[in-house]
């Protein structure tokens, strides 16, 4: 039996924490990416940051969409990385390694988010 805090299972708190992390990364991406774009640099960070903000927000609302948006951002990250530097491991390291690593807990969050959604649908108050 899962331990519960404030009426939520621990895994749900962890998913919310994941949402906070993704939201904060999104904030950094949007703030830094906006400056970079103004300086004539890559638009990736700004665009990806907006998706991450949406992903984090949705996850904090307990919506499965949050996880899916993160996976979309990850796919965008890989596509952009390969477009920019090909398959060179040294160059992929800073671009794709961390986001992919973060993608693992996001995958595991999907069933939790679904359970949260189901509970909401049943009419529970979350």
């Amino acid at each position: 039996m899962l331990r519960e805090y404030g009426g939520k299972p621990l895994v749900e708190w962890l998913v919310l924490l994941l949402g906070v992390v993704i939201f904060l990364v999104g904030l950094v991406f949007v703030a830094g990416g906006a400056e970079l774009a103004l300086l004539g640099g890559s638009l990736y960070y700004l665009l990806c940051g907006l998706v991450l903000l949406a992903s984090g927000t949705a996850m904090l609302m307990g919506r499965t969409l949050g996880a899916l948006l993160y996976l979309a951002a990850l796919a965008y990250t890989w596509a952009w990385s390969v477009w920019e530097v090909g398959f060179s491991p040294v160059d992929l390291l800073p671009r794709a390694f961390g986001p992919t690593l973060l993608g693992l807990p996001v995958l595991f969050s999907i069933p939790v988010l679904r359970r949260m959604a189901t509970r909401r649908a049943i009419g529970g108050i979350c």
Partner: protein
Amino acid sequence: MRRYRFLAMGMAAAWLCLPVSSHAQFAAAGSGGPPGASIPGPGRADEPAEQAPADPGYFAGPSPYAPQAPGVNAANLPDIGSVAADSLPAMLPQAGAAPAPGDWATYGRDDAQTRYSPLAQITPENVSHLQVAFTYHTGSYPRPGQTNKWAAETTPIKVGDGLYMCSAQNDIMKLDPATGKEIWRRNLGEKYEAIPYTAACKGVTYFTSSQVPQGQPCHNRILEGTLDMRLVAVDAATGEFCPGFGHGGQVNLMQGMGESVPGFVAMTVPPTVVNGVVVVNHQVLDGQRRWAPSGVVRGYDAESGRFVWAWDVKHPDDHDQPTGNRHYSRGTPNSWAAMTGDDALGLVYVPTGNAAGDYFSGYRSAAENAVSTSIVALDVRTGSPRWVFQTVHKDVWDYDMGSQVTMMDMPGTDGQTVPAIIVPTKRGQTFVLDRRTGQSILPVEERPAPAGDVAGDTRAPTQPWSVGMPSLHMPDLREQDMWGMSPIDQLYCRIKFRRAHYVGEFTPPSLDRPWIMYPGNNGGSDWGSMAYDPQTGILIANWNASPMYAQLITRSKADVLKLMPIDDPHYHPGAGAAEGNGPMEGTPYAITIAPFWDPFTRMLCHKPPYGMITAIDMKHGQKVLWQHPLGTARANGPWGLPTGLPWEIGTPNNGGAVVTAGGLVFIGAATDNLIRAIDERTGRVLWSHVLPGGGQANPMTYEVNGRQYVAIMAGGHHFMMTPVTDQLVVFALPQAAR
């Protein structure tokens, strides 16, 4: 004068550690525009005022005519007299002219400074059996309460029955080359305060006297230039001071230098003896003031220590010592690298830096501009340049010449060989010159360079490129070359890159925003110089790709940062140092400068490799035989943490290579604290060994009792953040493997 470099990086999975950036250090200067009142008019720009201003103000340093501070004449020596070059006795053939096969007679083994040894006991087949034969402790390392300014950078010499070397603070010793047992030691009592940017002693010089008969004390002597500016001669057999040299074996090199304080001026390279004249140069601390002590190069009689000539850039026709209250002209280009002597042509090849106040050239004279960042061939009879070859015009990037040049015979067009020198540079452009004339043997192109927009300081319209040699630098930086552990540090570095002005290698200094210097003053070839195998014609070069991030700032901003020159009474050692921020007092601007890195993780902003090693075939069209990154990530990582990874990522490196007839290249240099043996033909790393400290020194090899040894000073380097030790580590093959 310096050498430096920082650590590098590695990889780690810690991408969630977000470097939240603070850009304060590189923020725009704010109060832009030239501080008009502090710019001297044309009539005052060439020489400092004879007297200090009536109101010295908070930041005015001492007058150049002020007495030297206590300790500047470290041994309180009387002035030395002069002797005419014509009356010098003929020099005996020296050990470096044709070293015995088992000897390493000069800093670069021979007078040509090839760093090539004919020893062949250690080969690619048996090198894996190398083991430590002995370790020797010099006794010089930072004591409690002392700032770590150590980087011994020492290369011993081996002549006959002795291994001669110096500690980082200039104590001289003779070791038994077979056992490492100390035979004698001459302590010089050097003070900690005398250490300039770095406590280094790259080596000592062996000299055989024609005036003292064989068998008498000081027939063979060890000469050394010290951090506290003494020229010292001791007997090679006993270590006793040579009584017939200078005053009791010592000469005060601060004579005629004018106002100075300990640590401002220092000598870190072995003096060079050419036709009986011992030539000395010295470093002057970078970035302090426009009218820093002189960069004068001087010749002394190797027999008596008496003064022979001076080469003072602004007084080209006056080769005498200054008398009375006069001094050598201030602020002139200094030469801190090891020089190369050419007895046959009577020349000494002097690698020069730029004039003081490194990043603003508006107040430099035409005479200074003509000889800065150049190789200057001085006639050792007169002290006058016979030719000059300039590698950067009006240098404001601190591309001072760090490498010792190597003499070689270059294949000519008509089947004859041309007496040549190889001139490495921090730019990664390597020039090959006819050493009789200074003319380039390989094609050199003058290519257009960008103009600057700093008031009162114009840039040279063109810069020289050695298109006949492989270039030892990476392509220009692009935004997508930014690196990091995570997308967030990469984003930080991309912003930092885009904030800066960067239009390639000769991006001019700027006041309104930072600019990037790449290769920069830690790039290309540095004091490790190059190793040349005259048998195979293979040239071994290790080099760096480490950009710098800099910005000119106004005087008022410098005041806020408390940037003051070292000889200012209000000098604050933490505010600025050589290699770092500098006041450039006496010019309109100060400089902020740091590696182009993420200051949070202390990883360089661009992607590796940061250090490379290249083999060039000089006999068949200067082709690259092999080239690969030098240095693993084992001892490097974010926040200076070792990753333990054997990945040959290519780290910053300092210290050169040795090449042997056995077909091996020995080199430490990288920040992974390894010494390694590389196959000269293929570039493959065949053996490596973890040193007790950083291997930031040129290794050497010698033979005694039929056994070949390889020695390297594992002294580390403070700026490269490698462990500092006082240990010389010497390797040899066990009996069974020979």
